[in-house]
């Protein structure tokens, strides 16, 4: 650590991140419930093979459209596939989708936001106008066009959702960078001849991490919902992938005769998203109490 790091860095943001101690986590019941839900989803994804009672794509034509019972706790679909097993394997797809789409949005958004906020001037103007345009674009239509360009697949749906969420990160990060850019410790680093990349990486980014972490956590949940929406429209996962959105789309046709087909995948989405929302809200309360209860 240089002297500059030791002396001039503001203590508050560092302290806020350090505040995420186990004791604080335990004292926030919502955060704890959210973390437990996410833990269970991760366990389901990792140990899907061990937990799922049946093969998720195995078709049993003697067991079509069976109502929930001891043999099939969530019932079976029109191909006789076990819905519980498909929901459990669906956690793998959901987590991969949520994390990767979020990751794309995060990396691109932080990159644009930092450059826009730090460089300023015309670069800032150009990037922010692009973000305004993307935000004015109906997001699902933007995602549909991106998927149509790349071709309908789960990977492309993830990329599309990542692109759609990118401007929100960019705006958030730009705002935070603008606020921090004129701080004394950044000025001091600049005066000492520290390079731009080093200033951004060592002094600016660590101090805007709190809102980024909160938004990234909340966006995982939103990404899962939006990608399921694209799959529901036939633009995401293709059969027989056990993906919750496409399971819901199939279930819609059997809504009155076999409602369990659509009910359980929807419940799986709901529980997972609640988990990420609880963690996001809990982290926001810990890291930035001024925003308590507000939501982005």
């Amino acid at each position, binding site marked *: 650590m240089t002297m500059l790091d030791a002396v001039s860095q503001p203590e508050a943001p560092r302290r806020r991140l350090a505040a995420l101690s186990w004791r604080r986590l335990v004292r926030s019941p919502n955060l704890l419930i959210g973390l437990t839900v996410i833990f269970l989803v991760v366990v389901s994804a990792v140990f899907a093979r061990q937990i799922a009672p049946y093969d998720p794509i195995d078709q049993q034509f003697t067991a079509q459209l069976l109502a929930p019972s001891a043999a099939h706790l969530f019932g079976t679909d029109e191909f006789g596939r076990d819905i519980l097993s498909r929901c459990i394997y669906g956690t793998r797809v959901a987590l991969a989708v949520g994390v990767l789409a979020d990751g794309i949005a995060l990396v691109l958004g932080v990159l644009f936001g930092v450059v826009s906020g730090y460089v300023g001037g015309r670069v800032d103007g150009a990037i922010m106008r692009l973000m305004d345009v993307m935000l004015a674009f109906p*997001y699902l239509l*933007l995602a549909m066009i991106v998927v149509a360009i790349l071709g309908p697949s789960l990977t492309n749906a993830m990329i599309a959702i990542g692109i759609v969420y990118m401007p929100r990160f960019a705006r958030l990060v730009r705002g935070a960078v603008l606020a921090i850019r004129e701080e004394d410790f950044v000025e001091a680093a600049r005066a000492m001849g520290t390079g731009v990349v080093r200033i951004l990486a060592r002094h600016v980014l660590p101090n805007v991490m709190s809102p980024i972490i909160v938004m990234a956590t909340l966006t995982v949940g939103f990404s899962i919902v939006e990608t399921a*929406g694209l799959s529901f429209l036939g633009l995401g996962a293709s059969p027989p992938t056990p993906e919750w*959105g496409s399971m*819901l789309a199939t279930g819609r046709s059997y809504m009155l005769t076999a409602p369990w087909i659509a009910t359980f995948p*929807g419940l799986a989405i709901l529980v997972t998203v609640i988990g990420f*929302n609880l963690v996001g809200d809990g982290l926001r309360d810990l890291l930035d109490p001024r925003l308590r*209860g507000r*939501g982005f």
Partner: protein
Amino acid sequence: MLKYIGRRLVELVPVLIGVSVLVFLGMHLIPGDPAQRLLGDKGTEADLIRMRHQLGLDQPVYVQYVRFLAGAAVGDFGISIRTRQSAIWEVGQAMPVTLQLSLAALLFSIVAGLAVGIFAARHPRSLADSTAMMGVLIGVSMPVFWTGILLLLVFGGMLGWLPLGSLVDEGMRWRRITGMPVVDGVLTGNWALARSGLAHLVLPAVALGATSMAAIARMSRSTMLEVLGVEYVRTARAKGVVERRVINHHALRNALLPVVTLIGLELGLLLSGAVLTETIFALPGLGRLAITSVLALDYPVVQAVVLIAAAIFVLANLIVDVLYAYLDPRIRYT
């Protein structure tokens, strides 16, 4: 204020031009030849060349864009590749359906969201508050397409209280004035139409508005709690002002400010939600038109839908900013 509105309107132009560039390039990057799609397997090479010429696809991309922009400026978005009708006519047919749905969803989300939020704020940390906030958490986390399916299943299928999708009862015809069956029913005194339209509107509007409702409830609870603790509210109470007046006259107006911003943002989400809601409830609105057109490479219609939706979104946000000044006299725009 007028100067401010004028300046903001001018600032909207580059954003809308940006949206037009994005949608134009996006649609042209989608693999596939619209002329080939239109002709199917029947066309010869000569037919294909003629069709491409007719659609202007044989021109350089920038010429096509300039033509598109010049047309769009006067409301001419070209001819639908799918139906051979004017693209703006297609949008005009679908727009009232989405407008009626979005307005009903917005009304539901504002009324129910504020009611839940204010109720919860007036009874903080009570059982009712906890239940309301749990409902809100579920509301913001529920995918709109699942909410729609569940509502259809319970209220349409199991209880049979409300119809299963579509705009009005089957076979019902009416004289189109606005294209919105509920409004047209009222305007023409055709109460059977208005009743049918309303019955068909309830479930999709609730499905579409549920997420916004939850977000508004959460925000209004939070801002009401803040406002109810400030000095002027305590003073009003100390003066003996009745609670209803304290809430409506002193607290609500100030608590509404952040909620108004949220409503502006939620407006932008409604069209995206409408794509899914209209698919589930079989409503012939803009959302369904958009997905059908994207899949059919019907770029004149997609461009028209996106540009009109973006214009509505940016205008709605301008209205929200102007509402700010009305709600908070401290804010004055120049």
